[in-house]
């Protein structure tokens, strides 16, 4: 019998030169992507880590069995119910964001499987698509079983089907990243930035936090998913290398655009989870420390490797490491009913930890938490007082990323208004405005939540917005996890009445 190394190269280099049909008709530029090159330019496409179908099936079977074994051992409802409240809500965030987004990765990989420009690429993309099936089904199974206990876990399936403001932003990001994308941009954006730059390493950080939170089911799930990501993420680099060779400006633009867009989403998903929805004693590092060690350096090394430049907005990212997810969490806390998970009010211990990790602007953030805490102290704990510690006016959103206008600092918000074709647009940051102006035909017709309200598409009053547009219910909309009943808060005196 031949060894795998002796025959596999024959099994994944399979293209012949087409003579009865035109290459451009089989692989149209609109779907395959640009720069449009003849197959002769793509035929040396190679992935570093090769796998045969048989190996794939055997390995994936073993991995799945390991996940289900952990589920049977420590993933029962009674195990999950013992997890700390902050972590439980981090699970609800990920439960909603992950599974259906992974399914769009099936679609994106299938585009690569059909329209990738070399047979080896297309083969790896088939395995990638199958990976993403797995990444859809495992979290749906593990999280959705919790619905019978906590209705907020229904959002594991429901989230992307709603017009919740975060779902609008997530769909805007995912639709462009995976679904509405040509094969070249899909593989560069998803493999080189989203997976190599963010999710692969996020799973490392999340797995570590899950371990600290004694959530061994989630820990096993993400480490198992991560091994698949590491394999199919390797599709991107040889695609990027080819684009870099023939159109380096375009390669640079794709990396710059997608790093920014990923930064926006992951600073919310991971930043909030690490620095707010993990109990202080279980935090092994801050989000900023994690980003600096695992994401930023890795990304810069990738750029160097390909001869790409650091993104022009790099200093903004470094500044935002200190502020953005803090601004987002404070905003979201005071609009928690608009989301499907519960929030924890940072107390003295949490704020001390945050000050230590984020000294540069923490005074500004601490003042906000002081005011929120004082409001709870004034009205008293209890679910009946939730809306007294809640915003009542519509927040505002970026016309590119669809996320709240939380750029900059509390002292100086970075939001920018742009007059474009006789219409005002507002952006949370310079990079969002830059992306919009690079592809206005793609973005100009989108409507963020404020414009939907002003046009009458979305309701303007909060109850209808929550229930009819966001599809939340009194049972599922977000609340303070303890209804304001914190020991440390009980010690605060209510301010004297005026």
């Amino acid at each position, binding site marked *: 019998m031949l060894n795998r190394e002796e025959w596999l190269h024959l099994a994944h280099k399979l293209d012949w030169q087409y003579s009865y049909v035109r290459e451009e008709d089989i692989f149209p530029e609109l779907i395959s992507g640009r720069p449009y090159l003849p197959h002769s330019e793509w035929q040396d496409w190679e992935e570093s880590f090769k796998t045969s179908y048989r190996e794939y099936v055997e390995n994936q079977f073993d991995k799945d069995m390991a996940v289900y074994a952990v589920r049977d051992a420590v993933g029962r409802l009674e195990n999950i119910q013992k997890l700390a409240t902050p972590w439980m809500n981090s699970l609800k965030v990920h439960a909603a964001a992950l599974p259906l987004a992974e399914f769009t990765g099936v679609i994106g990989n299938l585009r690569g499987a059909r329209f990738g420009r070399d047979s080896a690429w297309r083969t790896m993309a088939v395995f990638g698509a199958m990976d993403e099936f797995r990444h859809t089904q495992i979290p749906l199974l593990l999280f959705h079983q919790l619905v019978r206990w906590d209705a907020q876990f229904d959002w594991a399936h429901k989230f992307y089907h709603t017009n919740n403001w975060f779902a609008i932003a997530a769909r805007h990001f995912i639709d462009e990243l995976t679904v509405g994308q040509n094969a070249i941009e899909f593989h560069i954006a998803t493999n080189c930035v989203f997976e190599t730059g963010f999710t692969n390493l996020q799973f490392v950080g999340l797995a570590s936090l899950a371990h600290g939170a004694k959530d061994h089911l989630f820990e096993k799930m993400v480490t198992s998913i991560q091994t698949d990501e590491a394999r199919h993420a390797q599709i991107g680099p040889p695609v990027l290398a080819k684009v870099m060779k023939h159109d380096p400006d375009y390669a640079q633009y794709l990396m710059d655009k997608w790093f920014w867009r990923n930064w926006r989403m992951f600073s919310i998903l991971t930043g909030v989870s690490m620095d707010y929805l993990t109990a202080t004693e279980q935090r092994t590092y801050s989000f900023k420390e994690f980003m600096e060690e695992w994401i930023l350096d890795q990304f810069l090394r990738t750029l160097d490797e390909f001869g790409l430049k650091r993104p022009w907005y790099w200093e903004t990212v470094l500044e935002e490491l200190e502020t953005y997810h803090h601004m987002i969490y404070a905003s979201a806390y*005071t609009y928690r009913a608009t989301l499907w998970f519960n929030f924890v009010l940072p107390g003295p211990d949490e704020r001390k930890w945050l000050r230590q990790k984020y000294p540069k602007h923490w005074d500004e953030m601490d003042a906000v938490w002081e005011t929120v805490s004082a409001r709870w102290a004034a009205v008293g704990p209890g679910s009946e007082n939730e809306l007294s510690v809640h915003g009542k006016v519509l927040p505002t959103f970026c016309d590119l990323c669809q996320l709240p*206008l939380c750029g900059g600092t509390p002292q100086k*918000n970075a939001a920018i208004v742009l007059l474009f074709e006789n219409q005002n647009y507002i952006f949370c940051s310079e990079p969002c405005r830059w992306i919009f102006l690079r592809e206005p035909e793609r973005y100009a017709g989108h409507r963020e939540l404020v414009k939907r309200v002003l046009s009458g598409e979305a309701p303007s009053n909060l109850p209808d917005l929550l229930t009819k547009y966001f599809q939340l219910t009194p049972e599922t909309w977000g609340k303070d996890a303890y209804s304001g009943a914190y020991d440390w808060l009980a010690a605060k005196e209510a301010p004297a009445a005026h």
Partner: protein
Amino acid sequence: MSIPLYGFLQGDVLGLLILAEEHETVHALSERLQEAASVRVGHTQDVRVIYKGNVLAPGLTLREAGLASLERFDVVRS
């Protein structure tokens, strides 16, 4: 006539939508933004309203001040 405006209060963490009226004064606009943000930022008497880089006189109506739809205004401490 209503003018939807993006309001940014110094010390706050996000922008807010203020549906203002042309006949409202600049001062009233600043009070509305402060009230809207009050769960996060305490009220300050001594503030200025900044619009397109200019400090607006508090007694002007929004129409007199030239505020236009979907523009940004800031309320900052004096």
